[in-house]
């Protein structure tokens, strides 16, 4: 029985403990804000412990036998999850107060989903990846359908569950096929076996099914169709949550398995990944052009962003992985910022989800207009925002690793141009159109405002001084 090194597990332990604590606190306190506060503190503590471990860690460490691998890579992803979860909790407070129901469970589900993500990022076992994935997904299914009396939310939860279960099945099948060839589900044991099994059709089918499973979770075309329906129907903070952390977690495991364990046969999957990336970017952006609902627009936008991240996988080296980590961090912050701004724009009667409802907001609610403009610019990848640096890094690393994939980079840049249209269209509406009817906006909710301002600071700070974050993302392969 190998020694269990608890200190390396502190982030996961803190997160699990906080989830349980939230449940207990919910039973004894009346104000549900306390639960949110506990959740925030726990998330902060988890992020802090991850950062401390990250700055002290040199070599990746096996824990729990070889079930998990704590590395700079996994710890950095913990910080992505921490940042996303913290921001999502802050923008949830208002929505949950309005709903008056099951608030305690809500925060617990968010926290447990985060534990699942952390397991995915630090898993050293395919089974562990699957466990993390299921823990996360089950929470998300419930969260998406969290307002049972709201038909759209109901539909979103149901669709997500059905399709998610389907994808999980395929994923598990892929694991089984790989186990059948490798003789182990340990990720580190795949690479040495590759020369023997790399050409085996059953092994390749297993690899393809893994891609499909991950492709579903991170919403790659053609496995993306659940995303717009779920984002639109789910409560807005949940949509923000699903678009950020889980996507990063999916990519964390995806990159861990492909850029690391399956790097030896990258020739087999590189072209497939490149084509999926091209399809995902293009379809996501093109359909986003014609959306009239801002949540659906952001859903397609997040599909397109998954395509950009996938471009980094084609590099299949340390630079590519680093650029993807950087990209995901930035993406989570700016995307939650955009969703948070949608929440800030709520009126007396409902949330403001139609794009034309944003007409004239720029002058009537200057701060709101400014924040939304900033996030849109960052999503579109304009300097001096973080979105620009993130895109630049990804494209650079991919192009340096495989100059023959220049077509993919050209396509990605063209896609960024296309995306500027629908991001800036919102800005045009905010500043250059007159509203058809006067909207009665509520005063800003301070918790949501704090979250959005934090996102804004992050987007600008990383955009202007990217070097600090870049140092944190520098990893070696075989992490």
């Amino acid at each position, binding site marked *: 029985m190998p020694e269990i090194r608890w200190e390396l597990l502190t982030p996961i332990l803190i997160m699990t403990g906080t989830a349980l604590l939230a449940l207990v606190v919910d039973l004894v306190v009346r104000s549900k804000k306390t639960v949110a506060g506990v959740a925030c503190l726990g998330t902060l503590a988890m992020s802090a412990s991850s950062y401390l471990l990250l700055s002290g860690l040199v070599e990746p460490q096996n824990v729990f036998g070889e079930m998990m691998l704590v590395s700079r890579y996994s710890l950095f992803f913990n910080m992505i999850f921490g940042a996303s979860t913290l921001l999502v909790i802050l923008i949830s407070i208002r929505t949950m107060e309005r709903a008056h129901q099951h608030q305690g469970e809500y925060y617990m589900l968010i926290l447990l989903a985060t534990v699942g993500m952390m397991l995915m990022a630090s898993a050293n076992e395919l089974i562990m990846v699957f466990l993390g994935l299921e823990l996360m997904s089950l929470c998300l299914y419930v969260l998406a359908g969290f307002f049972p009396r709201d038909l759209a939310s109901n539909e979103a939860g*149901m*669709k997500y569950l*059905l*399709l998610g279960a*389907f*994808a999980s099945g*395929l994923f598990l099948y892929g694991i089984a096929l790989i186990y059948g060839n490798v003789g182990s589900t340990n990720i580190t044991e795949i690479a040495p076996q590759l020369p023997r099994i790399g050409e085996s*059709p059953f092994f*390749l*089918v297993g690899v*393809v*099914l893994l*891609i*499909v499973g991950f*492709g*579903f979770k991170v919403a790659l075309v*053609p*496995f993306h*169709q*659940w995303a*717009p*329906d779920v984002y639109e129907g789910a409560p807005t903070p949940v949509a923000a949550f699903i678009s950020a952390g889980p996507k990063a977690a999916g990519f964390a495991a995806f990159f861990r398995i492909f850029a690391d364990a399956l790097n030896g046969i990258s020739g087999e999957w590189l072209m*497939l990944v490149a084509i999926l990336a091209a399809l995902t970017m293009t*379809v996501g952006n*093109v*359909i*986003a*052009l*014609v959306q009239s609902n801002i949540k659906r627009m952001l859903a397609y936008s997040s599909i397109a962003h998954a395509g950009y991240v996938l471009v980094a996988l084609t590099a299949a080296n340390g630079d590519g992985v680093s650029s993807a980590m950087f990209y995901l961090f930035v993406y989570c912050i700016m995307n939650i910022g955009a969703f948070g701004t949608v929440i800030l724009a709520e009126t007396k009667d409902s949330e403001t989800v139609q794009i034309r409802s944003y007409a004239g907001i720029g002058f009537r609610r200057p701060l709101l207009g400014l924040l939304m403009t900033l996030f849109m610019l960052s999503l579109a990848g304009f300097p001096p925002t973080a979105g620009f640096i993130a895109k630049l890094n990804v494209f650079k690393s991919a192009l340096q690793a495989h100059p023959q994939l220049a077509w993919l980079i050209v396509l990605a840049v063209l896609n960024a141009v*296309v995306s500027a*249209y629908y991001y800036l269209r919102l800005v045009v509406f905010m500043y250059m159109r007159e509203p058809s009817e006067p909207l009665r906006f509520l005063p800003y909710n301070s918790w949501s405002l704090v979250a959005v301002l934090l996102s804004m600071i992050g987007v600008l700070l990383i955009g202007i001084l990217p070097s600090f974050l870049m140092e944190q993302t520098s990893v070696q392969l075989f992490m």
Partner: protein
Amino acid sequence: MTVTPVLLLLLFPFIGVIINGFFGSRLGKITGVIGTLAIAASWLIAIFAIFLPVVGGAQLDQDLYEWIRSGTLSVSIGFHIDALAAVMILVVTTVSLFIHIYSIGYMRDDPGFFRFFTYLNLFVFAMLILVTANNYLMMFVGWEGVGLCSYLLIGFWYERKSAIDAGKKAFIVNRIGDFGFLLGLFTIFAAFGTFRFEEIFADAAMQSSGVLVAITLLLFVGAIGKSAQIPLYVWLPDAMEGPTPVSSLIHAATMVTAGVYMIARSAPLFDLAHVGLVVAWVGILTAFFAATMALVNNDLKRVLAYSTVSQLGYMFAGVGVGAYAAGIFHLMTHAFFKGLMFLTAGSVMHGMDDELDMRKMGGLRSKMPITFWTFLVGAIAIAGIPPFSGFWSKDEILYSAFQQQHLIWAIGLVTAGLTAFYMFRLIFMTFFGEPRYEESVHPHESPPVMTIPLILLAIPAALIGLVGIGGHNGWFARLLASHGDRGVEVATESVSALALMIPSVLVALFGIVLAYAIYGAHKLPILKLMAPPTGLKKLLVNRYYVDEIYDASIIQPIQFISKYVLWKVVDVGIIDGMVNLIGWLVRGIGSLLRLFQTGRVQAYALSVIIGITVILGYYLLLR
């Protein structure tokens, strides 16, 4: 010498910009004092920590930090302080200080008060960067910075269309010069692989003469634009639309002399390239033609503007014949006396309700005595009457020119006569004779905050020339010895310097007497002054129709092509058409793809299955 004083020198105007720029709108009139104190601090540093140590033999060439690295290109922020830079720093800070003080009074009632001082401090900052740089790229940064401030300050009164037009004209004409400068910079980098003065000058002898000729001529194009020489001088007279202190500081004393400074700084290149005579001829012809245009102009500030163009021409003639010290010497004296004259012109405007037409003045001598006497000092200085400053510096240039080509000297001599004539024509029309202004105008002397700078500036305007006594062996020439006069070496001493002084003084006196005979000896009837000009005078009043020629030959064709070809056909038709077509196409595809998003779970699952089938089919069958 350490780099600290240079940093402090730059820091104070910069602090002034930050304070006045960000908080000026709330600080009110104190901004003028802040701006002035910033310059005063720089001025003290310039004298005691830079100029005097340099006189004592100190030098500095130090890189502060690397600014840009890309491939083999490495550009540093670094400073080069020698006698030439020290003289420029001293002139810039001194004249700036007086003009800042003066502006507190002159701009007192302007709503853009703080904006004015922000721009003015920014200008000083940029100008000091220009003269302290140790490489061409940083010099270019200052060069563009002063250009920007010039543009902002010409169009300072942006409600006036004429001011905006003048600002745009200055900017666009300067772009032409800057384009040449930039090409020169590219050529320098291609040839030398560096922008640092010291490295370039050390390697210059190794380069082929063709490369050096290209570099120097391109740099000279930049100087022509910035320093308003033929054929790019047209922006400077229009630049008088800016507030008068701006005309004084930027468009007379400092910025427009940047071209002269740049050529003096690049002296090793110009010497090796042997293009000096091109520079000298452009300069002396500019001097002559600008002076002829000043002869007939009735606008107080425009006479001074043409005079500035003309005097800049002298400076180029000086550096062109290799007399770099003489050119810089004239730059210095001119900065003082021309800066002074613009400020007095501003004082006249102040007392005359912003009237600029000299035909509507006359007899102001008794109304504004300080203004009159200080202006007279400036006029005597520029006319070249000993021992006033302009005499020494102009004579030095003429003497050096005589050694090279007698014709340049001769044109310069005639121009000196013209200069004396138009300056005293201005004095007689403005300050002597019967008043011709309307009864509603009540001329009065300006407040002390304006007249004290006039008096203080009149002292160097009169006496600063004395530092140059002794010509090539004088104190000033020896100070600038590192930029030594080639004139000394090639001089055959065919005539003594003294012999050449006699004709130039006589010509100046003749000009003054002629001006008196025409404009001072008898009463000037306003109707006669207002009569439309004829003959040669008409040609001069219309400035040789140069603006009209540029308009017909360059501006109109460009506008025509831009409007009817580039805009209506290329832009609207082809580019917009293509963009719209693509946009329409992509949106169409988007609407089509949207149809697949049916909302049915079964359809979504089917899509996943189809995706898997296609991928697996590819892997298992096609490979």
